[in-house]
């Protein structure tokens, strides 16, 4: 017997039918074949050019292959213990996920039901908006003000059905951040009406003294939840591991939506080892500081304006379509992120790599500007 296709129009809810899947880029080998380049310099995903800390590299090398057949700790037990020691909190205040992306979904599932909404910015990391929308909840996206999250407009956009505010601090892609006063003021205004998520995926890159560490505010604001990831500073993007932290009570609610065993064992040991590293953060910061300053200088010398404060990335405004620049750079083996999808047409976002990578990027960009008739 064969069964005919079910009536998908009837089976799928309307918020799914009107949502289109995100299509990730093709694998490097295929992209290289299409674009005819012999190497590919990825400056599109804000990865750490130094890779993982030495300690994590060792943990990965020492991982016994046979352990691949054994289920990992279902709730990243040892990692949570270590995070608790490190931040002076309880292990149960942490939830570890398959990347910070997964914990975004945990939080939204835990607090939203039909008719609820979340509030975030229009030009920020898109996953908060996506998860809300494909789960059937409204995502209210508030325009940025001077490239930063607009606290007043976010409060004005909220109503009694607003369950979560998402603040990306520092913001991807603009690099702006809320300082301590601004964050505290916002938290005070929200009071205990909603959950406030502060996504600190890039916090380890920030060196500004007035940058607030949300982890330290959790005891004062039990409705505050912070997200962290091992993908950026700790160079473990491919192992997929990130976490959230909050008050025991809030985390207890979120835990109910967790998929246990979603974090693999190698990721857990590599993350644990990353927390032991001593000089990795400092080395990465030094590299990013130098390379970003160089990049910014070169762009300005070309007459191109840049947007970028904190974080390991810089936005550049081009005198042409960003998607055309993408193709032309790809032909030369350099991959950047177009910003049209972030609602910044003609901007590209360049991940800060090591100096040779930055030299390559600048040379290739000059080539295409020249090709397009720009006087440089």
């Amino acid at each position, binding site marked *: 017997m064969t069964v005919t296709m079910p009536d998908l129009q009837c089976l799928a809810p309307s918020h799914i039918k009107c949502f289109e899947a995100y299509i990730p880029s093709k694998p490097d080998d295929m992209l290289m074949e299409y674009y005819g380049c012999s190497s590919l310099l990825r400056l599109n995903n804000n990865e750490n050019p130094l890779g993982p800390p030495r300690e994590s590299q060792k943990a990965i090398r020492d991982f016994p292959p046979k352990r691949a057949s054994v289920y990992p700790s279902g709730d990243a037990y040892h990692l949570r213990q270590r995070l608790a020691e490190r931040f002076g909190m309880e292990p149960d205040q942490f939830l570890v996920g398959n990347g910070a992306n997964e914990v975004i979904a945990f939080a939204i599932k835990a607090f939203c039901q039909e008719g609820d909404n979340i509030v975030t910015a229009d030009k920020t990391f*898109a996953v908060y908006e996506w998860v809300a929308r494909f789960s059937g909840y409204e995502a209210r996206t508030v325009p940025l003000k001077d490239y930063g999250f607009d606290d007043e407009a976010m409060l004005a956009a909220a109503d009694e059905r607003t369950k979560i505010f998402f603040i990306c601090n520092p913001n991807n892609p603009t690099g702006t951040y809320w300082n301590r006063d601004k964050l505290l003021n916002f938290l005070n205004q929200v009071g205990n009406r909603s959950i406030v998520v502060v996504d600190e995926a890039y916090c380890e890159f920030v060196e500004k003294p007035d940058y607030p560490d949300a982890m330290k505010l959790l005891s004062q604001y039990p409705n505050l939840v912070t997200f962290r990831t091992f993908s950026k500073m700790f160079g473990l993007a491919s192992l997929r591991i990130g976490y959230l932290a909050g008050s025991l009570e809030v985390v207890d609610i979120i835990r109910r939506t967790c998929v246990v065993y979603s974090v693999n064992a190698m990721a857990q040991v590599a993350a644990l080892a990353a927390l032991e590293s001593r000089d990795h953060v400092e080395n990465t910061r030094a590299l990013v500081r130098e390379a970003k300053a160089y990049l910014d200088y070169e762009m300005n010398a070309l007459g191109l304006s840049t947007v970028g404060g904190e974080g390991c990335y810089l936005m550049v405004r081009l005198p042409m*379509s960003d998607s055309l620049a993408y193709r032309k750079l790809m032909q030369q083996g350099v991959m950047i992120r177009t910003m049209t999808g972030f609602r910044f047409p003609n901007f590209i976002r360049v991940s800060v790599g090591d100096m040779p990578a930055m030299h390559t990027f600048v040379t290739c960009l000059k080539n295409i500007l020249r090709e397009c008739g720009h006087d440089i």
Partner: protein
Amino acid sequence: MIATQVSLELAAAPEFFPVARAVAEKASQAMGLGTAEVRRVAMATEEIFMSLCKSAPGKQLAVRCLPGGHCVTIEFVFHDLNFPLEYFNMTSSVAADNEEDLENLGLLVASRIVDGFSVIRDDGSRFVLKLVKEKSYPQHSGGAVTSLAPLKDFSVRESSPEEAAYAATQALGLYPAHALPREFFYPQMLADMLDFGRVRAAMAQGPAGEVGGIIAWDRPPDGNMVECHGPFVFTEDRNPAIAEALLDFCIGDIAKLPIMGLVNRRHNPDIPVHYFETVGSLPVTSDDGARFQAPAYFRQMQEDPGCIVWAHEALEPFLEKQYARLCLPRKILRPSGRPLAPKSRSVLFTEFDRRGGAATFWPVSPGRDIPQNIAAHLEMTKKERVANVLFALDLGSPWQADFTPALLDADFSPRYILPYAGCGDMAFFSR
């Protein structure tokens, strides 16, 4: 606006003819068409239904009436794999030995009665034949419009239907007709389209509420492309910052949708061309007989992952040149060229834009008779006095490559490529 559709499932049999007619008539009346338009919808429905009774007797079909703000769409939906595809050839001269064919003028007649006519194949087996009838609107009489003094400051926001209708009258006074979309000539139509959500618009506003410019864009319910009209700037200084801000707004509106590209096919000097790539241009004959080149501006909305295209060797030089010029990562493949069955007959859909004086042919299936079929279709558009005839080839479908030699022999030339506009890239030809 109550956007409820009316649907009917029935068989193509003469006894159901009054049912189909009455439903189309009553529904289009309820959806706001005037008496004269309702009558024409009923007539067109009659033509199609009767011709279906002859060509596909007893086959199951659905008739759907959909409100569209400024128009009503009547759709005939066929799910049947065995549906006789030849039915869609809007010509009576193919296989003149087949008497039934000579009677198959229903589609052509229907197409003359309505404002828009198209057939789409939305998945392998489902065909949708669409008739669009518009409400009748007064054409704006034009009149003198003077440019505004430069604005000290401005902001861009979504425009309401009334504001857009007003801005359209400003654009009418300041721009040549070929730069404007048809709905700008009928401002009430534009307002209805906006109300319905079929079109969106943004405007630039000065400190005292002055309307400094407008951009409008279609929001198609499906499809990979969005077409924008404008930006149009109404200040004396034609401030490019206004044009860019309007275009930024439009791009921001569609940025998170699964749209592959934004096109603009009506040149005006305010368009910030550096936002676009010029993919080519089309020679166009306007109502008054004037001929001009209409450039096609394209902006890719996603990072191009690369794709394959299927092309006949005769099209390869054009494609290679275009792909190299536009830096599009493509692998050009040649179909194997297997001979088709001796009796296979090709099928083309004709999409009419009667008001725009244009017809576009879309291949539905290949056949041994492609050259004759193209000739017959050209004969038909000549008789119908269509000034602009286009041919759209989907380079994502290998079998469509078979149409290339006959197209070139019939004096069609490839004009431009729109990346990802169909299953793959679309190539547009004109004569």
